[in-house]
C-alpha cells in the first residue's frame, strides 16, 4: 500500500438515529482505492447501518459523506452511489424471485435497454459468474425462485461486480459467505483479492474472523455505533480482534463452569428422532434432563430436525418419539418469534395462556405476574414489562423468547441457534439458566453454530447434508472433531 492513494469514500463524524436508538454515533471511515477493508463487530454494532449509508439506502442525520473527494452530504442516494461506482451486496437477498437471472441483472443496470437486452444481460452475468465461481451451474434463463439459496447468493454477488457504463470502484459485501459452501467461499475470496490487486476496493463484513484476517488489508472494528479500532490486517490476531470487539472474557468464563456429570441413560428417553435421509439408522436420542447439542455447518438439517420434533409433538404424530410438551426458542426472532404489536409481558405469556385462564377468561393479573417473575429471573432490562417488545434491545428480546419457553409447561425445550447476535453477558446468564432447568429435569435440544456453546451440552450430534454424521459424548467433544465431521473427506 502506498500513501498517495486517493480515497474513494470519506466519512466524517457520521451519525444516524432510529427514534431514540443511536445506530451510528459519529463514525469516521476512509476507504482507499485498491484495498480490501474488513469490517467486524457484534450484531448491533452499526455495521449494517453504515453499509446502508454507503449504499445510499439510508441518509445519515449528520456528518460529511465524501465520494472521490467531492462532498455529497445531503445529496447522496442510491442513484448517486451507482453513478459513483459503489455497489452493495446486502445480507438479505435483493433478487426478485419471480424473474430470471438475466432479468435480475437488468434491474441492476438502468442502461440495459433496447433490442436484445435480455441476451446482453444474460451474457454479462454469465461471464461474471464464470469468472468468480467456475462451474457454478447457473443459466441466465433460470428463474431465481427455482435456484438454491447458495446459487442465489452467487448470482447476487456476481451481479454486484458487473458494470455497464460507470466504472466500478467499491463493492461492499455484507456476510457474503453466509450461504456459500467452503469451495465457493474460497472462490469468492480469491476473486476479491484478485480484483483488489487490480485497483478495485472492497469492504468485507464477515463474522468468520478467519476470512477477515487472511483476506483484508485493513480491519475496522465497530462497537456501539462507533469505530473503535482501525489497523492493518496483519497487526491483528484472532485473539486481539476478538478483544477489540469486546468479548475477551468469553472463552475463559465458559470453561470455568463446572461440568455437569450425568450418567447417560439413567433417565428415560424423551426424544428419539431420525431424519428421512438417514440411511444407517442413527437417531437423535435425548434422555430426560439432558442438554443435547446439534452441531455442524449452518443449514445442514439441524433446524429441520428441531421442527420435525416440534411438529410431531404439536400434531401428536406417532412417527417419532417425543414424550412431553415442547416449546421452541426461535433464533430468527423477527420471523419466528416476536409478536411486534404486543407488550413484553404478552410476548412472554403467549405460550402459557392456557394456565392463566380463570373462570374461562385470561386473567390479566396472572399474565402480568408471569411477566414480572420472568423479568426478575432472566433479567429482562426494561422499565416496564407493558412496553412494546420492540423497545427492547435484540439480546433482551431474545431473553423474552427464552422466558416464553421456560415459563411454559414444556418439558422439552428446542433451541434453534438462539444466541445469534446476543451479547456475551446475556449468553452467560442464559447458559446458567439452561443448566439449572436441566437439573430440574427439563430436556434441551440445542442447535448452535457456535462451537463454544456445545461445551454446555451433555451430548452432541453433528449434522451434515441433513443426516447425523457424528455422535459425541461430552468428554469426547472437541472443535477439531466437529470440524472434521462437518466437512466431507473430499470436497
Amino acid at each position: 500500500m502506498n500513501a498517495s492513494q486517493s480515497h474513494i469514500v470519506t466519512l466524517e463524524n457520521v451519525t444516524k438515529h432510529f427514534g431514540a436508538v443511536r445506530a451510528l454515533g459519529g463514525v469516521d471511515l476512509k476507504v482507499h482505492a485498491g484495498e480490501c477493508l474488513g469490517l467486524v463487530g457484534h450484531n448491533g454494532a452499526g455495521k449494517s447501518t453504515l453499509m446502508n449509508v454507503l449504499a445510499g439506502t439510508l441518509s445519515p442525520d449528520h456528518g460529511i459523506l465524501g465520494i472521490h473527494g467531492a462532498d455529497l452530504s445531503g445529496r447522496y442516494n442510491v442513484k448517486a452511489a451507482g453513478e459513483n461506482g459503489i455497489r452493495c451486496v446486502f445480507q438479505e437477498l435483493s433478487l426478485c424471485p419471480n424473474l430470471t437471472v438475466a432479468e435480475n441483472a437488468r434491474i441492476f443496470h438502468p442502461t440495459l435497454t433496447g433490442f436484445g437486452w435480455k441476451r446482453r444481460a444474460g451474457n454479462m452475468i454469465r461471464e461474471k459468474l464464470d469468472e468468480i465461481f467456475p462451474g457454478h451451474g447457473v443459466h441466465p434463463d433460470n428463474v431465481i425462485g427455482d435456484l438454491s439459496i447458495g446459487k442465489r447468493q452467487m448470482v447476487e454477488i456476481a451481479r454486484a461486480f458487473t458494470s455497464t457504463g460507470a466504472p466500478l470502484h467499491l463493492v461492499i459485501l455484507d456476510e457474503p459467505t453466509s450461504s456459500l459452501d467452503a469451495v465457493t467461499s474460497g472462490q469468492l475470496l480469491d476473486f476479491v483479492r484478485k480484483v483488489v490487486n487490480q485497483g478495485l476496493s472492497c469492504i468485507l463484513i464477515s463474522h468468520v474472523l478467519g476470512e477477515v484476517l487472511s483476506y483484508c488489508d485493513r480491519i475496522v472494528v465497530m462497537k456501539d455505533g462507533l469505530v473503535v479500532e482501525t489497523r492493518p490486517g496483519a497487526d491483528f490476531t484472532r485473539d486481539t480482534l476478538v478483544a477489540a470487539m469486546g468479548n475477551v472474557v468469553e472463552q475463559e468464563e465458559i470453561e470455568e463452569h463446572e461440568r455437569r456429570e450425568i450418567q447417560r441413560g439413567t433417565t428415560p428417553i424423551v426424544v428419539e428422532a431420525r431424519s428421512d435421509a438417514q440411511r444407517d439408522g442413527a437417531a437423535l436420542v435425548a434422555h430426560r434432563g439432558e442438554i443435547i447439542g446439534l452441531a455442524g455447518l449452518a443449514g445442514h438439517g439441524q433446524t429441520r430436525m428441531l421442527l420435525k420434533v416440534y411438529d410431531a409433538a404439536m400434531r401428536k404424530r406417532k412417527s417419532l418419539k417425543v414424550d412431553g410438551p415442547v416449546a421452541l426458542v426461535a433464533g430468527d426472532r423477527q420471523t419466528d418469534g416476536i409478536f411486534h404489536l404486543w407488550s413484553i409481558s404478552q410476548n412472554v405469556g403467549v405460550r402459557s395462556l392456557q394456565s392463566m385462564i380463570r373462570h374461562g377468561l385470561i386473567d390479566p393479573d396472572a399474565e402480568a405476574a408471569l411477566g414480572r417473575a420472568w423479568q426478575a429471573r432472566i433479567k429482562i432490562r426494561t422499565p416496564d414489562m407493558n412496553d412494546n417488545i420492540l423497545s427492547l434491545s435484540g439480546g433482551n428480546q431474545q431473553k423474552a423468547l427464552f422466558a416464553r419457553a421456560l415459563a411454559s409447561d414444556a418439558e422439552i425445550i428446542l433451541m434453534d441457534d438462539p444466541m445469534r447476535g446476543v451479547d456475551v453477558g446475556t449468553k452467560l446468564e442464559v447458559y446458567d439458566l439452561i443448566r439449572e432447568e436441566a437439573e430440574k429435569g427439563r430436556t434441551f435440544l440445542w442447535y448452535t453454530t457456535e462451537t463454544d456453546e456445545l461445551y454446555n451440552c451433555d451430548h452432541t450430534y453433528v449434522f451434515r447434508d441433513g443426516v447425523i454424521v457424528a455422535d459425541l459424548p461430552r468428554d469426547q467433544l472437541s472443535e477439531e472433531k466437529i470440524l472434521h465431521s462437518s466437512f466431507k473427506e473430499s470436497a
Partner: protein
Amino acid sequence: MLAQLSSPKFLRAALPAASFTVLLAAIFYVQPRAMSYFGMNLMLQYTVPIALATIAQMFIITVNDLDLSIGAFVGLTACIGATLLADTPLLGTLALAACVAAYAGLGALIHWRNLPSIVVTLGMSFVWLGIAVLILPTPGGTAPGWVKALMGLKVPYVPFPIIAAIVIGLVVHVALMRSSYGAVLRGVGGNPKAVGRAGWSLLKAKMTMYAAAGFFGVLSGLSLIGLTSAADAHIADRYTLYAIAGVILGGGEFTGGRVSPVGAVIGALTLALTGSFLTFLRISPDWQIGAQGGILIIVLALRALINRREA
C-alpha cells in the same frame, strides 16, 4: 423429455391451455354444431371485453394488489363510450383519458400511503358506479359506429374474437414479459425493496401499472358496448369477479409478480366458453355463476395437486 413433460413446472404452465381445450372438446361433443365459424363466433363473442378486463386486473395483481373496482370501472367507461364519446368525440376522449389518469392517481395514492388496495378499490367501485349513474341514469346510449364496426369485424376462416385474443395476448406479452422496463415492473411484484434499492422509482412503477390497468379497462368498456350497442351503469358488475378468475385460470399467482398475459387471455376464453357450455348442457341460468365458481375450484384443485407433487 418425458420427465420434462411431466414435471410440475411444465404441467403448471400447461394447465390453462389444457383446461380450455378440455372445455372446448366437451362443448363440441355435446353440441357438434358449435364446431363452426358461426358457432365459435357466437360462443366467444364476449371474450374480448373479458380478456381486456382480465389483463387490466393482471397488471394490478403483478404489483401485489387487487382491484375490486374493475367491473364498475368498465361499466363507467362503457357509459362514457355510449354517451359522450358517441355524441362529442373530443369530450369523450378527454373523459376516458381522465379515467386512465384517475387510475394512475389511485396507484400513486396506494403506494404513497401504503394502503390496502382491496379497501381502496372497493371504495372506488362506488365512485365509478356513482359517476356512471350520473352520466347514464337509465340503460341506453349508443355505441359509436366505429366501435361497433370493429367489434363486428368478419375475418375469413378464424373467428374475430380468437384473433383479437391472440393480438391482445401477444401485445401485452411483449410489453410486460419481453421489454426491459417490463422486467422492472414485474420485479416490483417479486421484491419491491430490491427494485427500489437498484434505484428505480416504485411510485412510477405502480402508477404505470395502474394506468395500464385503467387503459385496458377503457378498452374493455368500449369493446363491450361494441357488442351490446347500448350501455348501463351495471353492465359489467360481474367483470370484477371474471377478471380475478381469468388471471387465476391463466396461471397467475396472487403475490410475487408471477403472472402470464397469454395465460390470462386463455383464462378469459375459458370463462367465456363456460357460459356457452352450460347453455348447451341445458343447465338453467341459475347455475351459470355457480358453475363458473366450480370450474375455478377445479382448476385450482388441479394446480394444488401439481404443486403438492413438487413438494
